[in-house]
């Protein structure tokens, strides 16, 4: 995997959050303030643009730098809770890769683990708080476990995406303890967390990007 993988991942995220924009807005309207779809769309559109320009300027941009650029772009265009969280996540992930031109499955795990650590550090949320962590942490764990078991990156990512989707659904019956939804107390129960939902899209986008690239 390389810079092209990252670029195509970001394009996939952009396409899927745009397609799910209204759904994310609806989910956020139910237990938040109804802007999550707009936030993610605005951010990843800017990321795709920024990465395009960076690759035009330097076609040899290493994948780590692209991730850092993506993170910076999110921080400077999204706002809200998701901007700093995803922004720091991608920056931390990118730093893991340094200047190297390509990376393997084991390194991808470290990238995602660093992203998760950064989200948890900044947002102080744990699994079960009804946030994006509920989708991201199981995805990272599943990816690591499958690769350890000797699965291909593609298979492992399929597992990670499915785990993220399961994590996303796991947010429905629980009460929020972080973010805006926590203001609702018990009224947050029964609703799927928008951030966990977009996180599942982000991991699914990564899986697709890798599959397409390997074709």
């Amino acid at each position, binding site marked *: 995997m390389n810079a092209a993988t990252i670029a195509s991942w970001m394009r996939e995220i952009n396409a899927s959050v745009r397609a799910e924009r*209204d759904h994310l*807005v609806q989910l956020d*309207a*139910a*237990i*938040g*303030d*109804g*802007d999550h779809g*707009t*936030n993610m769309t*605005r951010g990843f559109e800017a990321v795709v643009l920024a990465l395009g320009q960076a690759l035009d300027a330097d076609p040899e941009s290493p994948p780590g730098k692209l991730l850092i650029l993506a993170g910076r772009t999110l*921080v*400077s*265009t*999204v*706002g*809200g*809770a*998701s*901007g*700093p*969280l995803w922004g720091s996540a991608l920056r931390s992930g990118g730093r893991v890769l340094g200047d190297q031109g390509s990376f393997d499955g084991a390194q991808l795990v470290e990238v995602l683990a660093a992203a998760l650590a950064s989200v948890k550090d*900044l*947002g102080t949320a744990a699994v079960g708080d009804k946030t994006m962590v509920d989708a991201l942490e199981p995805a990272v764990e599943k990816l690591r476990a499958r690769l350890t078991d000797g699965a291909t990156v593609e298979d492992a990512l399929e597992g990670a995406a499915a785990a993220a989707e399961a994590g996303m659904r796991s947010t429905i019956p629980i*009460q929020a*303890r*972080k*973010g*805006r939804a*926590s*203001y*609702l*107390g018990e*009224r947050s129960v029964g609703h799927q967390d928008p951030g966990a939902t977009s996180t599942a899209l982000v991991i699914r986008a990564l899986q697709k990007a890798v599959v397409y690239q390997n074709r």
Partner: protein
Amino acid sequence: MAVETNQMRKFLNDPAHVVKESLVGLAAAHGDLLRYDAVKQIIVRKDAPKKGKVALISGGGSGHEPLHGGFVGLGMLDAACPGEVFTSPVPEQMLAATKAVDGGAGVVHIVKNYTGDVLNFKMAAEDAADEGIKVTSVVIDDDVAVQDSLYTAGRRGVGATVLAEKIAGAAAESGADLAKVTDIVKRVNDRSRSFGVALSSCVPPASGKAIFDLPEGQVELGIGIHGEPGRRRAPLGSATEVVDVIVEAVVSDLKAKRGSKVLAFVNGMGGTPLLELYLLYGEVDKKLRAAGLEPVRNLVGSYITSLEMAGASLTVLELDEELTKYWDAPVHTAALRWGV
């Protein structure tokens, strides 16, 4: 005069530009007080930076007007960072504002307690520190509708924000230093409690849809300022009954001594007319007195809003002599003006 996109009850061109276009108008109307930097997306006091004066900035999602841009000027904020509607601004804006207003005496960030605002301001404060600017941050969290526990993001910042900006702004104008101004913001926050109710949702321009559905005759109790649903919904009682609930929630949490002098701030959420706000103030005044508090200052109007939401909130600030003095000090902003 038809345009496909305008199916709302709003004066809009492109919904994506509503914030920017509104800021252009704010600057056109109040060029004597402030300027709008459209590149950095900040509102800056006309005469900033003021050498030697502690500067105050705040910011947050738009849709709460006049907060914050309407409070930029003499005796209040030095800059405001408006985000998209109901979306926290980004650290770049806050950093740019911090740099634009720093007069060497330091900059106070007044941050409403929402995860987004807190995280973005945190990043900006770190960046500003890297650039050698003294920055302090105070998080405002006065909303008693939200339990302040390990199981929430903490209480929201609502009406006390306006009071803190006014009172600390006066302190800064009078020459107080960074530690002092920071302390005043904290003090106002510590001594303030708020509670809001909504009679309708609002419609963010980007989606064009109401955030929640509230039938007539129902009230959302414990709403914030982002059109989010409240803690619970109830049949709408009389104004007297609603004020009972609100005052009880605020007073029981404030725990002020009997005989305390307070500032009572009856705030409209945007769609509730002044006719009703004054009716509410009449009830609030009566009930606070009955609860042993003496409203010696008040503010009635729509100052921290949720677009066109129908609803109101009460903020009670337990005054002391110093806070009263700074409240009374001159202020000249688009939305609050006296003594000058």
